[in-house]
């Protein structure tokens, strides 16, 4: 391979630069989309099969735990049913008051179901590819979530039939977040395998491990999307902000199907 290396290297460099310009700036990601479109279907099927296998394997090892969880969920379900009734009454009352006060209605979202067909983890970035893109009206910046409004990532690049998602654990993703049931706000940053870090929370603020972190709604994402739970809080004696680590909520879930929230 090293025979005539300089000549080969220069030819390769020129070819790659041409391809980059053709794909990224001239043809609207034609090359990348073509390759992804060809392999999307088999990868979706394989990914789905592997996720189901993983689910089965995990459930074999966790039968006792599942039974306990099932019992707890049944109890919670009964409690939620009664809470739902109260919420229904409150919603009716709320709607009535909004109309009365002529308050602008809360922003509505449309949801698109997507399947993850490729995940890329390495020492620097964490990303996923989903099987819907421009064809479903996906735009960069849209949040990607699971059931229960657990935030998974943010759309970065959109191709005609697929899209690139930056996971919230990717260092390139920063989110405006707040701690549930308090006024404390901060900025989360992806830390790859270590989850997320919560920045800009002053030393004098009272933050405890186990508290829930959710989106604040100040950076264009909807508010109250679940980000994760605080696992460690350390006071920084040399600085003015605490050092806080967050365990992302999506880590405990099996990533197969996700939802993209589209602002109407």
């Amino acid at each position, binding site marked *: *391979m*090293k025979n005539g290396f300089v000549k080969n290297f220069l030819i390769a460099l020129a070819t*790659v*630069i041409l*391809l*980059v310009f053709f794909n990224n700036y001239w043809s609207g990601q034609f090359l990348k989309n073509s390759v992804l479109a060809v392999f999307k279907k088999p990868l979706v099927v394989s990914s789905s099969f592997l996720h189901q296998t993983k689910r089965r394997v995990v459930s074999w090892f966790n039968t006792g735990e599942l039974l306990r969880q099932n019992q707890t969920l049944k109890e919670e379900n009964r409690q939620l049913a009664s809470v739902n009734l109260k919420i229904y009454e409150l919603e009716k009352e709320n709607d009535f008051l909004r109309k009365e006060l002529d308050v602008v209605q809360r922003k509505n979202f449309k949801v698109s179901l997507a399947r993850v067909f490729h995940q*890329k983890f390495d020492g620097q970035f964490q*990303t996923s590819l989903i099987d819907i893109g421009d064809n479903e009206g996906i735009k960069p910046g849209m949040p990607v979530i699971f059931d229960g409004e657990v935030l998974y990532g943010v759309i970065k690049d959109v191709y005609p039939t697929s899209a690139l998602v930056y996971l919230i654990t990717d260092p390139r993703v920063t989110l405006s977040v707040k701690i549930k049931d308090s006024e404390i706000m901060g900025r989360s940053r992806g830390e790859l395998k270590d989850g997320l870090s919560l920045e800009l929370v002053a030393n004098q603020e009272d933050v405890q491990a186990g508290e829930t972190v959710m989106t604040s709604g100040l950076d264009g994402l909807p508010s109250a999307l679940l980000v994760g739970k605080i696992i460690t809080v350390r006071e920084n004696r040399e600085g003015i902000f605490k050092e806080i680590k967050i365990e992302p909520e999506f880590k405990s879930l099996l990533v197969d199907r996700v939802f993209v929230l589209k602002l109407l």
Partner: protein
Amino acid sequence: MSNSRFISVSIGIFLTEFILSIFWPFLLRADLFIIFALAVFFLDHTHKTSFAVFISIAIVFDFWSGSHFGNLTLTLLVTILAIFLTKKVVLIDNRVNFSALLWLTGFYYFHLLIKGILYNLGRQFIFPKLSFIDLMETVLWILVILIVYTRVSYEKRVSHF
């Protein structure tokens, strides 16, 4: 290493990463294809792998890299240029040994540094993580790839009659 073996191992790496990303994503702290490509360029003295095939496979991996297209290939090109220049200055043998492991670790981190610089040129610099655990996992993956490389590049010599 022949072209067909290079392609076969690359496909194997893609499938391994695909499966690991679902079952054990925490194991993927290093880019296996980059390590393999660097190992081939650094150690292969048979010159059987065509440069065109080498770059074509890199471009295919680029589509799946999770970054802007071109980032992975250009970074790889800069790193192999660095290997080429290092080999011009320093006398390095082509055998798989401890020194090869050290050189490859160094070049892999150099690749991460270049990737961080190339990403969004000047807008946001993603510095490679330099924790001990990350380093150990990277070294472990380089070791695995070196073993694979040794097994795959071995060719039985048959005497001419």
